[in-house]
């Protein structure tokens, strides 16, 4: 079997190797490198190494050492001599050992090794590698080579970009090495960053990592792998086998660790269960110990809510708290049994709970709990019933107390109040009736108070928990009841006495009222007459007033007597009230107070002489006013007609079209002069008017003119003169500048005047529109017409005053008829100065214009921007339009 194994696997290899070895010396070189490294990876354990594979094994000593390290077995003692036969003997000892392991060494003799035959030496080492490093890889009964291949395939299967089919080409890109490392030690390299097209990096990465972390020396050369058409199969196998050993070793360590863990886990789990048992047991016992006394305690706080709370607690205990504890108890028993079984099965010692926590201890404690619980609920319910009855009685007591207290509220205050000392007679009579009603009400309440006292006594007898409150409340009610009786008596006496006094006062009041009302009336009338404001305009009127006043003075003696007897009545009332401590209410029969009567009487007496003086003063004033009126009237009657005449004359000048504008202007200038020289007359009248106003004279029967009308007339005259002069001047200016003939002018004026229906010298927009139509404008009665008209309005009425003056009208008419684009004209003028050029220079301007104007232009003109300009050229065109608030764009 073993022989057949090598026949099939090893011999085949041998022939292949010989043939290929002869064909390609590169493989020999590769094998030398790899096998040397492989040997050293083992020799280093013995503290030595080889430099040259064909030289260093020649004496057989290191060969024997290598075999000892690999196999872990002792070889026969080597010969120490340095002679050739010593060497041959040593090599033979090694070869014999190998052969002893069941390996047939075909055509390898000791002499060739001692002679340093490279091929023979390499063949021998390969045999050793195969036997000791690869042979034991027996996966599923395959040859060693196939076994190693299958191991590689299985380990690299999860890596999509590796496909191990052999031990040469499949390893060229290095990914398979990396995959093997990553599969076992993923932390050593980041496989998924690697790519097939960087074999050098991949190979070197795998070799470096293997060397540093897996303790596998570099046996292959990345460059050789990449550069050779087909890497040497034996070298790759030797190297890959090292991976196998490195990882299978690791795997074993891991398996060992797993096993240990498993054992520990069992122990930990057991300990956890023990702790759990201890904890559960402690908790349960503690709960039982805590709950039992509460169940054994058969006392309450003697109140209904407290007892009800206790019942709630008991129900909570039965529903919420006890069931989980019962479960705990069952679980505790189960887990105790489980634990013991587990311990027995895993050959561990049995578990003994700590003192007092045995399963039997717990069962005993539970029994005690149930004993205590027995009868608890029945006791609690009967107690509850008793308290409920008591509580009902207490509630009845409180309810009755409340009703009584509510009734008693304010009663004492009411009885003690001496309100009858402040009331009227009628009110007092009502109070007496009310008090009688109260007395019978009080008698009816006697029964209730007795009932309250009876309930309080019963509560005391039954041992109600809050007797203190009940008793104090009952006492308060009884005490108050006694006081109410006494107070009722006192109030009745007070009411009777007050009634007598008030009836007397009432008689005085009535008498006072009967006499005070007419006298008060007489006083008001007298005062009114004495203070009566009068406006008189003549001396006759004031004479009449003085006569009336004398007659009034005759009646004063009789009035004084009546006044005194009325005041005596008032004094009597106050005296009675003061003596009996009664507060007098207002006299119900009258609104007139005694004090008012006294005040008014005194005032009338004071006003009489004052009236004498006022009348005398007015007499003097009236005589003076009469004089002023006559003075103003005589002057005004002269000035008024004068102004009217002149206004008419000025107004008629514009309307009369026979004369030329210059004639009109001359006439107007004359009027202007005349008017100015008349000014002193106005001033004089103003002075008289000032005196009139100071004397507060508002009417003057001697003249129809007032200062205000004369002033307005005067100012109208001044304005009319000035405006007419201005208008005529403007018309002359317009006529001259636009070259309109006098006839044309008159035509415009005639049209304007015709439509100026109100003679206001202005046209409303409506009148203006009619005027335009009459002059031949086509303004339609539609939206377009409206737009056209609005555009015209914006020209003639730029400020939106809603009227059109003759000037504006004239300006508009002439603007439309003559083609006078002034900006254009200015521009044309500059163009002439500029000798037809589109720009002008400062020099020309200074030459042609006065210095002021020249500088004005130079400062404001923008530089000329046209292409044909010269340095210093100025733009007169934009300057010209800007003068008219226009711009060419």
């Amino acid at each position, binding site marked *: 079997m073993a022989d057949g194994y090598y026949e099939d696997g090893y011999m085949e290899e041998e022939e292949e190797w010989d043939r290929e070895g002869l064909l390609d010396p590169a493989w020999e070189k590769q094998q030398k490198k790899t096998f040397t490294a492989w040997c050293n990876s083992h020799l280093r354990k013995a503290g030595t190494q080889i430099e040259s594979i064909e030289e260093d094994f020649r004496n057989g000593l290191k060969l024997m050492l290598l075999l000892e390290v690999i196999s872990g077995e002792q070889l026969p003692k080597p010969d120490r001599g340095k002679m050739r036969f010593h060497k041959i003997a040593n090599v033979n000892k090694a070869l014999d050992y190998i052969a002893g392991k069941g390996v047939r060494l075909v055509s390898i003799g000791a002499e060739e090794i001692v002679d340093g035959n490279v091929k023979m030496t390499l063949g021998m080492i390969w045999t050793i590698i195969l036997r000791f490093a690869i042979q034991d890889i027996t996966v599923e009964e395959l040859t060693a080579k196939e076994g190693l291949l299958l191991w590689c395939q299985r380990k690299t299967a999860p890596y999509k970009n590796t496909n191990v089919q052999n031990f040469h080409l499949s390893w060229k890109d290095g990914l398979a090495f990396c995959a093997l490392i990553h599969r076992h030690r993923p932390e050593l390299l980041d496989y998924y960053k690697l790519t097939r097209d960087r074999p050098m990096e991949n190979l070197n990465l795998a070799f470096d990592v293997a060397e540093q972390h897996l303790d596998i020396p570099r046996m292959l050369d990345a460059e050789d792998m990449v550069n050779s058409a087909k890497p040497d199969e034996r070298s790759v196998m030797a190297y890959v086998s090292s991976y196998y050993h490195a990882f299978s070793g690791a795997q074993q360590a891991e398996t060992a660790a797993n096993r240990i863990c498993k054992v520990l886990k069992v122990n930990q789990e057991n300990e956890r269960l023990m702790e759990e048992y201890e904890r559960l047991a402690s908790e349960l016992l503690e709960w039982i110990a805590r709950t039992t006394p509460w169940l054994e305690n058969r006392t309450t706080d003697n109140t209904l809510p407290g007892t009800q709370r206790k019942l709630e607690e008991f129900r909570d205990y039965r529903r919420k708290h006890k069931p989980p504890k019962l479960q705990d108890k069952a679980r505790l028993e189960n887990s105790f049994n489980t634990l013991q079984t587990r311990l027995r099965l895993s050959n561990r010692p049995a578990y003994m709970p700590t003192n007092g926590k045995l399963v039997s201890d717990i069962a005993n404690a539970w029994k005690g709990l149930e004993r205590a619980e027995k009868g608890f609920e029945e006791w609690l319910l009967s107690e509850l019933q008793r308290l409920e009855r008591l509580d009902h009685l207490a509630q009845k007591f409180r309810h009755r107390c409340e009703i009584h207290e509510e009734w008693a509220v304010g009663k004492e205050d009411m009885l003690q109040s001496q309100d009858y000392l402040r009331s009227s007679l009628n009110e007092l009579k009502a109070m007496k009736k009310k008090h009688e009603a109260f007395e019978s009400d009080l008698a009816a309440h006697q029964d209730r108070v007795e009932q309250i006292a009876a309930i309080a006594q019963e509560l005391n007898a039954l041992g109600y928990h809050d007797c203190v409150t009940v008793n104090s409340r009952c006492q308060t009610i009884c005490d108050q009841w006694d006081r109410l009786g006494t107070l009722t008596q006192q109030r009745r006496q007070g009411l009777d006495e007050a009634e007598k006094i008030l009836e007397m006062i009432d008689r005085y009041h009535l008498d006072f009222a009967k006499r005070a009302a007419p006298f008060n009336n007489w006083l008001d009338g007298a005062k009114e007459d004495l203070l009566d404001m009068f406006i008189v305009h003549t001396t006759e009127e004031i004479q009449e007033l003085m006569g009336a006043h004398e007659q009034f003075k005759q009646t004063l003696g009789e009035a004084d007597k009546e006044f005194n007897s009325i005041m005596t009545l008032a004094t009597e009332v106050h005296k009675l009230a003061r003596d009996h401590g009664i507060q007098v209410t207002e006299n119900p029969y009258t609104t007139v107070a005694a004090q008012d009567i006294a005040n008014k009487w005194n005032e009338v007496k004071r006003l009489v002489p004052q009236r004498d003086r006022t009348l005398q003063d007015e007499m003097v004033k009236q005589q003076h006013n009469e004089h002023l009126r006559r003075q103003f009237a005589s002057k005004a009657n002269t000035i008024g007609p004068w102004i009217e005449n002149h206004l008419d004359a000025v107004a008629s000048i514009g309307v009369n079209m026979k004369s030329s504008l210059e004639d009109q202007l001359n006439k107007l200038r004359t009027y202007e002069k005349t008017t100015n020289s008349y000014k002193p007359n106005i001033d004089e009248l103003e002075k008289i008017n000032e005196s009139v106003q100071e004397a507060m004279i508002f009417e003057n029967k001697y003249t129809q003119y007032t200062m205000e009308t004369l002033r307005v007339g005067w100012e109208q005259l001044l304005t009319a003169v000035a405006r007419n002069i201005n208008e005529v001047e403007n018309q002359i200016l317009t006529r001259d500048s636009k070259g309109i003939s006098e006839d044309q002018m008159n035509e415009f004026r005639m049209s304007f005047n015709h439509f100026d229906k109100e003679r206001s010298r202005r046209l409303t927009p409506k009148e203006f529109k009619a005027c335009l139509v009459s002059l031949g404008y086509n303004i339609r009665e539609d939206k377009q017409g409206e*737009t056209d008209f609005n555009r015209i309005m*914006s020209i003639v009425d*730029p*400020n939106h005053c809603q009227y059109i003056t003759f000037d504006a009208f004239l300006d508009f008419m002439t603007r439309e008829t003559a083609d006078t684009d002034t900006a254009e004209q200015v521009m044309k003028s500059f163009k002439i100065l500029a000798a037809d050029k589109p720009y002008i220079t400062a020099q020309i301007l200074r030459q042609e214009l006065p210095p002021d104007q020249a500088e004005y232009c130079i400062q404001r003109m923008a530089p000329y921007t046209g292409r044909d300009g010269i340095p210093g050229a100025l733009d007169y065109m934009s300057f010209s*339009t800007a003068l*008219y*608030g*226009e711009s*060419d*764009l």
Partner: protein
Amino acid sequence: MQTYIQLQRNSTMDPWGFRLQGGTDFNSQLSVKKVTEGTPCYGQLTPGDAILGIGQNSTDSLTHMQAHDLIKQSGNVLQLSVCK
């Protein structure tokens, strides 16, 4: 009647061809004073047209120079809202 018109020209050196008058500083509506024959605006604007808007701007509160500058800044395309 308010209408919108768009003027175009080939170069900013070419004038639009109309004369602007008015503005808040003159207390009057911005309007077209005159139009030069053969210019971009000829046939689109007529003298007396009120200019209500320049581009996206209302002319309600513009002074003459502000309106002037707005038109100057408009480049080779000028949009006007006018009342014929």
